[in-house]
C-alpha cells in the first residue's frame, strides 16, 4: 500500500461492464513528507474518496478483492481514506 492524494477523476463511457458504476480517480503517490513519489496513476475507488483527499491504495491482484474479485479488471484500488495530514504520525 502507499499514501496518495486524489488529484482528479476520469470519465470513461466505453469500458469493461464490471467497471460500470465504479469511480475512477487520478492519484499521486506521496512519500513520508507528503511530497510526490513516482508518476500519477488511475485507481478504482473502493472507499468513497473525493478529490483532494489523502488516501491509501493497494496494488496488484489484491486490488480487485474489494469488488467482485474474479471479474473486476484493476491493479490499483483506493482502499481507505486517511483522516487528515496530521494523522500521518511522522509529520
Amino acid at each position, binding site marked *: *500500500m*502507499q*499514501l496518495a492524494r486524489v488529484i482528479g477523476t476520469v470519465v470513461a463511457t466505453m469500458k469493461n461492464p464490471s467497471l460500470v458504476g465504479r469511480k475512477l480517480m487520478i492519484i499521486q503517490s*506521496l*512519500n*513520508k513528507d507528503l511530497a510526490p*513519489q*513516482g508518476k500519477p496513476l488511475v485507481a478504482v475507488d*473502493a*472507499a*468513497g474518496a473525493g478529490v483532494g483527499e489523502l488516501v*491509501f491504495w*493497494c*496494488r*496488484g*491482484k*489484491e*486490488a480487485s*478483492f*474489494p469488488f467482485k*474479485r474474479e471479474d473486476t479488471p484493476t491493479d490499483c*484500488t483506493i*482502499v*481507505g*481514506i*486517511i*483522516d487528515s495530514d496530521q*494523522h*500521518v*504520525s*511522522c509529520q
Partner: protein
Amino acid sequence: MSVVSSQLLVAKTKQLTTELTISNMILAKVLGNIVATQKNARYENARMMLCEHITPEGEATGYTLMALDAVDAGAGDTVLIVQEGWSASTTATGKAGAAIDSAIVGVVDRIDLLENETT
C-alpha cells in the same frame, strides 16, 4: 569495486527505488502509524504503519510505503516487509484474500554483510 562506481550504483538504486514500485521481500524502517477511519472492512483492528525502504547497510532510499503490522513493530524499528498479497493478508488479518498487498512479518535484530559485497 571502486569508490566512484559504488557511489554511482547507490545513486542509481535510489533513483530506481523512488521511481518504481518495489515488490518482493524488503527491509524497511518504521516511521510511524497512520489513522484512517473510513477504510475497507478487512483492515479493521489492523495497525497500519508508514515505512521507508532501506538498503542492507541501513541507508534510507526515500521510497515510502505502507504495511500492516503483524508483529508489534514500533517506530524506529528495522523490519521485514513481505509484498505478496496472499501471505500479507494471512499474516496481518489471519485470513487470506483481503485487499492488502504488504505486511510487516519480522523485526530485524541484525544484518551481517560481507565487506566486499557492500555497495
